[in-house]
């Protein structure tokens, strides 16, 4: 926590204070009965090492980390395990089906994750195309149907399409995770209007997933009224991942506060903010 030491106060405490002051400590996100204290969810990929991963996650203030499900290295058993560094008692582990290109592989991976894991939570991803990493919507629906029947809590990665979001919710997904932009692109919220329509279409939490580049993107997502943001590359790929993780934390907090505060409407012309009365020369 050397960054926090520099400003002489624990940055986690600052967030707690701000949340308390604005009555946000009870502003918890609940999905399928599971309470999430943080509206920033982070991935564990692309970090330099486990130590950097641990520090970035800590700086982000999150309580949810995504992990992938992969074959155990049978030959070399000496490799450190991610869960030695990310305490499952401290963080909710959200396994994903990242890298799956078919409904069948995604179902297999999710079922294994549920058996390996601590909970029935799974982030469903069925990728449709290597270049864009856009979701295969049809296969995602197919896999979601099977996994919901198997009793899993399915959080699907989906394109920013309100109709797809509705279909996924109709078959039992307790939240949807529309992309902001292609995974790892850092382009930010490319279609805020669709994200808004999704929020009006479904009555479940909407978590923006993928494509976020920097703290203002996260703030924008939260200002739109999204319930949380999941990101990975924007932190792990930053020059200083620990500092960016901290920036993202404040981005979420600022955006959420602004959303709850209710912004002024946009207008074409000026409205004076100083009184006209009492001006000299009047």
């Amino acid at each position, binding site marked *: 926590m050397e960054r926090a030491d520099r400003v002489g106060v624990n940055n986690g405490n600052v967030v707690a204070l701000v949340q308390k002051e604005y009555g946000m400590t009870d502003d918890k996100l609940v999905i399928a009965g599971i309470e999430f204290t943080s509206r920033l969810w*982070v991935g564990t990929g692309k970090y330099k090492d486990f130590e950097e991963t641990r520090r970035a996650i800590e700086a982000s203030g999150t309580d949810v980390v*995504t992990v992938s499900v992969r074959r155990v290295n*049978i030959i070399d058993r000496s490799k450190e395990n991610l869960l030695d560094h990310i305490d499952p008692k401290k963080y909710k582990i959200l396994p994903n089906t990242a890298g799956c290109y078919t409904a069948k592989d995604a179902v297999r*991976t999710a079922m294994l994750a549920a058996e*390996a894991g601590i909970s029935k939570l799974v982030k469903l991803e069925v990728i449709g195309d290597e270049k864009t990493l856009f979701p295969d919507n049809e296969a995602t629906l197919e896999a979601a149907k099977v996994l919901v029947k198997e009793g899993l809590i399915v959080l699907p990665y989906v394109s920013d399409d309100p109709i797809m979001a509705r279909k996924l919710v109709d078959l039992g997904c307790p939240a949807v995770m529309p992309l902001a932009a292609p995974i790892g692109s850092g382009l930010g919220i490319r279609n805020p209007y669709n994200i808004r329509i999704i929020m009006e279409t479904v009555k479940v939490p909407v978590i923006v997933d993928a494509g976020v580049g920097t703290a203002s993107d996260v703030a924008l997502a939260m200002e739109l009224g999204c319930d949380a943001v999941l990101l990975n590359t924007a932190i792990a790929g930053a020059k200083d991942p620990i500092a960016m993780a901290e920036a993202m934390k404040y981005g979420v907090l600022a955006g959420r506060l602004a959303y709850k505060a209710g912004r002024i409407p946009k207008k074409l012309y000026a409205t004076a903010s100083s009184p006209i009365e009492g001006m000299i020369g009047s």
Partner: protein
Amino acid sequence: MNITLNGEKKDAPEGLTVLGLLQHLKIQPERVAVELNLNVVKKSDYAAAQVKDGDSVEVVSFMAGGVWSEPTVSA
């Protein structure tokens, strides 16, 4: 006996259960999930589930990963 373990042909002692196989491989059972011939094996069944000659076994665990990473699970 010959089994396919994580996609690779491997020789394993006869008459192993899933638990026995994990112990043979020096893998902690708590941290992994096992698929035997495309069916997920419940942790409570590890001690009873028999691995037979020609079986296909997948042993997976949670790894670093975010929104997307290299695919490994294959049919």
